[in-house]
C-alpha cells in the first residue's frame, strides 16, 4: 500500500500521518499542494492543520489547489481518500463529502481523548472475528471548527445509506455536531472524513493504537476501478 499524504502551507499533522501509514505496514510520501501527479499512489490522506491559514472558511482555499484537483479525479475513479480534521473540512468544501464543519458550539478549541463508535463500513470485517459489527475507538480530537452540519434530509439519507462512518460515544460530543457525527463517508464508500485524529493514536506510548483501525478501514475501502 503506497499512501500519499497531502501537504499544504499550514498543514501540521502530515508527519504523524506519514508515520501512521508506515506503522500500518505501508509506504508513504508527502504530496506538495502544487503537485498534480498522484501516479503510483494507492490511497490519499488529506491531513490536519490550518491549510492556507484557514482564511475565509476552514478548507475553502485548499480545495482549489492542484493537488486537490488530482484528489478529486482520484476519488472519482474509486481511489480511497481519508480526510482528517482540516482534511475533512477540505473534502467537504470540495464537495467530495456531504455537509460542512462549523465553529464549535462552545466557541472554544477542544483538545481531548474521546471514544468513537465505528459505523458499519460494509467492507471491513469486525475485529477478532467478533459478532459485533461496530467497535469503540479511543482517539484524540483537537479542533475549533468541528461541528458537523448538514440539513436534516441529508442526515436522514446518510443514516439510511450507512454513510455515518464514526459517531462520538454518548455524552462525548465535543462540538455540538448533528446526531453526534464525528465522520462521514461518500455514497461510494471510498472517501472518508473525520474530525478526530487517528494518526495521533498509533503508538501504545500515547495510550491507544485504535487509530490504525481507521487507516485499515480506508485502505480496504478502495473501490475497484
Amino acid at each position, binding site marked *: 500500500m503506497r499512501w500519499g499524504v497531502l501537504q499544504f502551507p499550514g498543514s501540521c499533522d502530515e508527519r504523524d500521518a506519514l508515520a501512521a501509514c508506515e506503522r500500518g505496514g505501508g509506504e508513504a510520501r508527502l504530496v506538495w499542494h502544487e503537485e498534480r501527479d498522484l501516479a503510483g499512489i494507492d490511497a490519499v490522506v488529506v491531513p490536519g492543520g490550518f491549510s492556507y491559514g484557514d482564511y475565509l472558511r476552514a478548507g475553502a482555499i485548499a480545495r482549489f489547489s492542484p493537488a486537490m484537483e488530482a484528489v478529486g479525479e482520484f476519488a472519482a475513479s474509486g481511489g480511497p481518500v481519508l480526510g482528517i480534521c482540516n482534511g475533512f473540512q477540505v473534502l467537504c468544501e470540495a464537495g467530495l463529502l456531504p*455537509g*460542512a464543519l462549523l465553529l464549535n458550539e462552545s*466557541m472554544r478549541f477542544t483538545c481531548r481523548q474521546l471514544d468513537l463508535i465505528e459505523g458499519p463500513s460494509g467492507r471491513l470485517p469486525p475485529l477478532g472475528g467478533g459478532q459485533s459489527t461496530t467497535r469503540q475507538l479511543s482517539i484524540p480530537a483537537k479542533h475549533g471548527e468541528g461541528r458537523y*452540519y448538514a440539513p436534516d434530509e441529508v442526515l436522514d439519507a446518510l443514516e439510511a445509506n450507512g454513510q455515518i462512518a464514526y459517531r462520538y460515544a454518548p455524552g462525548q460530543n465535543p462540538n455540538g455536531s448533528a446526531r453526534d457525527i464525528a465522520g462521514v463517508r461518500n455514497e461510494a464508500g471510498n472517501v472518508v472524513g473525520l474530525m478526530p485524529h487517528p494518526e495521533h493514536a498509533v503508538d501504545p506510548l500515547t495510550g491507544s493504537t485504535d487509530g490504525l483501525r481507521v487507516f485499515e478501514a480506508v485502505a480496504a475501502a478502495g473501490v475497484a476501478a
Partner: protein
Amino acid sequence: MLIRPKEGILDPQGKAVERALPALGFEGIEHVHVGRMVELDVEDPERLGELCEKLLANPLIEDYEIEQLDGAA
C-alpha cells in the same frame, strides 16, 4: 458581499454577542447574527454571484447579498 449564517443554523458568535449586551446596558436586542463582509473592486460585476457560490460563501450554511457601490474609490 455580505455573508451571514443561514437562518436556523446555530450561530454561537451571534449568541455570545447577544448574551453580552444586557451587561452593557443594551436591552431589547435579539436575533444577533455575526457574518462577514468582503469588499472588492471589479470592472464587470456579472460573475460576482458565481464567485460567492464557489468561494466567498458556502451556500450550504451561508446566505449572501451583493451590494454595489458605483464609483467607490
